[in-house]
């Protein structure tokens, strides 16, 4: 393997390929930083360009763009609460409050470091364990996906804020997820005969509306809106912070790889599950959502690790792990390559060049993130009265470009108003997003599982992985609900 890696390094170090990698990182930075414009779209735009290149350079370009967009979504997420990509939604929960406290530099530093570590762990896992991980991924079928989604949903109970509002939020999210054509029976649900609702509500209009637009609305109502943000300095390596987040970094990177390799589950879901786990394992869950360092480290380490993990089933089995990798798969076919179980052995040189390319991309992210953000942060000096409308324009263009749909734009603006109003009553928006992301997985995989077993629900408990995950979910809910009662009992005993 070492020899193949060295050969790969030789290919990557060709000046032309270095230029390609560098420009890919830059394109990814810009694309990821613009709300609504995600990696999927960038890869699609650049696909035709790659037809004229040789396959190795083409895939280095596409995978590098993919990796760097997943990273750069955090910038606007932290600075303006306008997630640049769906993967960066969770990052805004603690990143933006930190910015409001005047610690934007610290927040960005944590984000950059966590991304680079997550991305590197993911890439190393990709290089070393691809065949092994791919066989693990195949152990996951519908019952396991269902159990995983249930486990993710239980975090609503431990989110710290009002449990009742959390449950309502999750229900709203689950409801939104049922809109559209039923994935199993192809019956229309809540579409009111509208074609625009037939394929359901896309995640992008919800995220961009609820977070970016609602924040602009809120700032527009504040008197201080003309005040420019303070200058900040990014510190990537900060000993004290690193000590605080190292456990989270380790856990989230591994969790990200684990979730990323599962076919059909992307980096956004990985970020969400990782954030939930960070809250769950923290000694101070009440700090999350208010500018907690671990709340940035968890989703950023996980989404970058998961983005690399999603390449595992693609390379090893020809099965895409996420939306963007599905398009990269299409690109392989157009380049005359044959994705499938023999892909790695047949195209070793290309794959190792791509691997080395990805490692270098993670280094480039670490090196170039700071100057890029420094340029970008000049925008911070622009008064919000001018910046707000620019953010809205980016949101409109980005949302439109996902499906070339004006309906999605109206939807996004609608969710913006809804998000603004819900925030006024301190409604936990994260619970809604949780429901929207995990709802479709839980529902359709539950029904697929029952179709697999001819309606026998015991299958969830006889399959070891799903049984373990479901037991964990039940245990966690019971514990979180009983904990306050136990505390009250202890207090009473102590008083007596």
């Amino acid at each position, binding site marked *: 393997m070492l020899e193949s890696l060295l050969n790969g390094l030789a290919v990557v170090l060709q000046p032309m390929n270095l230029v390609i990698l560098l420009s890919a990182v830059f394109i990814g930075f810009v694309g990821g930083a613009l709300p609504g414009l995600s990696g*999927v*779209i960038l*890869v*699609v735009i650049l*696909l*035709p360009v790659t037809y004229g290149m040789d396959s190795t350079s083409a895939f280095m370009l596409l995978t590098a763009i993919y990796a760097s967009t997943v990273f750069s979504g955090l910038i606007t997420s932290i600075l303006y609460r306008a997630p640049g990509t769906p993967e960066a939604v969770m990052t805004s929960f603690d990143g933006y409050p930190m910015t409001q406290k005047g610690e934007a530099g610290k927040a960005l530093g944590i984000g950059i470091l966590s991304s680079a570590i997550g991305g590197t762990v993911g890439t190393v896992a990709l290089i070393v364990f691809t065949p092994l991980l791919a066989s693990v*991924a*195949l*152990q996951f*079928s*519908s019952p396991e996906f269902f159990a995983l989604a249930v486990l993710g949903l239980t975090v609503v109970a431990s989110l710290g804020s009002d449990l009742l509002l959390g449950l309502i939020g999750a229900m709203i999210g689950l409801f939104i997820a049922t809109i559209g*054509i*039923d*994935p*199993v*029976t*192809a019956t*229309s649900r809540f579409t009111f005969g509208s*074609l*625009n609702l*037939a*394929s359901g509500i896309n995640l992008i209009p919800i995220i961009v509306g609820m977070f970016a637009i609602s924040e602009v609305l809120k700032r527009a109502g504040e008197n201080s809106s003309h005040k420019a943000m303070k200058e900040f300095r990014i510190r990537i390596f900060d000993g004290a912070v690193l000590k605080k987040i190292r456990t989270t970094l380790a856990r989230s990177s591994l969790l990200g790889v684990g979730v990323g390799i599962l*076919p*059909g589950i992307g980096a956004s879901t990985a970020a969400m599950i990782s954030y939930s786990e960070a809250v769950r394992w923290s000694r101070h869950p009440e700090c999350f959502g208010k500018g907690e360092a671990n709340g940035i480290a968890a989703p950023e380490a996980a989404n970058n690790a998961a983005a690399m993990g999603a390449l595992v*089933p693609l390379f090893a*089995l*020809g*099965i*895409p792990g996420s939306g963007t990798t*599905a*398009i990269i*798969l*299409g*690109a392989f*076919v*157009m380049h*005359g390559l*044959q*994705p*499938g*179980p*023999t*892909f790695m052995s047949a195209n070793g040189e290309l794959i190792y060049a791509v691997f080395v390319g990805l490692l270098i991309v993670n280094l480039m992210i670490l090196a170039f993130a700071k100057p890029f953000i420094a340029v970008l942060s000049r925008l911070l000096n622009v008064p919000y009265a001018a910046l707000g409308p620019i953010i809205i324009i980016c949101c409109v263009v980005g949302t439109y470009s996902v*499906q*070339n*749909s004006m*309906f999605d734009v109206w939807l996004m603006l609608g969710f913006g108003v809804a998000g603004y109003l819900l925030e006024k009553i301190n409604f936990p928006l994260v619970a809604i997003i949780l429901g929207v992301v995990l709802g479709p997985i839980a529902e*359709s995989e539950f029904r*697929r599982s029952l*179709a*697999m077993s*001819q309606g026998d629900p015991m299958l969830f408990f006889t399959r070891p992985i799903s049984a373990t995950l479901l037991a964990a979910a039940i245990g966690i809910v019971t514990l979180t609900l009983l904990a306050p009662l136990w505390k009250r009992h202890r207090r009473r005993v102590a008083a007596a």
Partner: protein
Amino acid sequence: MSDRNTFLAFGMAGVLAAGTLAASATMAAEDNFPDGNITFLVAAGAGGGTDNFARTIQPLLEERLDTTVNVINLPTASGAIAHQRTASGKADGRTLDFASSTLVTSLAAGQNPTGLDQLTPVARMQSDVMALVVNPDKYEDLEAFMEHAREQPGDTVIGGTAAASPDKMAFLAFQDATGLDLSFVPYDQEGSTAANVLSGNIDGMFNEISSITGYTESGKMKPILFFAEQPLEGFSEVPTTVGQGWDLTNGNERGVFVSAKTSPELVNRLESALHEIYQSDQYQQYAERVHLDYRDGWMGSDAYQQKLQQDLKQYRTLLKQQ
């Protein structure tokens, strides 16, 4: 001559001139076709088979018609928006709808309000062969599969992509022809279906031959039945539906559509341009690269129109019976 007469005379002349101009303008529309940019509405998301098809045609058509072609993906509602926009748009032959058989399957399932009477097919260019694929560790061949299905009714689970898709229609038609009692599980993505077959969690899947060659060559998956008239090249040992006495040959087809209001002349014009493209080396190389060369994809406007009508009728019957 009075002023009034002069005015009348000029007026008449003007009307006449305008009339001739208008007439020559309509003539010009067909002579100078396309006389402006062309738009491809792709009834599927970016990066998939239908999108690749449209983007392969794009430069070839630009070259032949000396114009610019814009590609717009409209994946919403299985492409129903693309069909609707094509049907209700201008009938100037400059808006082309690139669609797969999902156009007919979604129509049969009642999810696509644009009927076949609102769209005119220009040509069919791809005809992908449907295959029943299994994990070779589970079933050796069609016989073993059928035996298992017969012995344990309802216990055999077949996967496919999407709930109202060519895969589902193949499943229904297969069940109808064999009289077997099978279960169908629709997945959102082809990859998930393949993963479940590879891991042995389900018994098999219906899929197009073009996207499984990677698996079959590695021996991890095995096609045990093709929906075709005669054995496919390189798969002489795999039985075909027609060989088994079942009249099922539908797979997934891809073609180009325009609004039904488009004049027959324009449709002809486009059809011959597409036919030239179909026969070109560039197109055939692409077809070979993506394994769409197992059978002839070309079908002209009239023949395709008839075939679509037949397919729609068959799919409606199958869905009603299920």
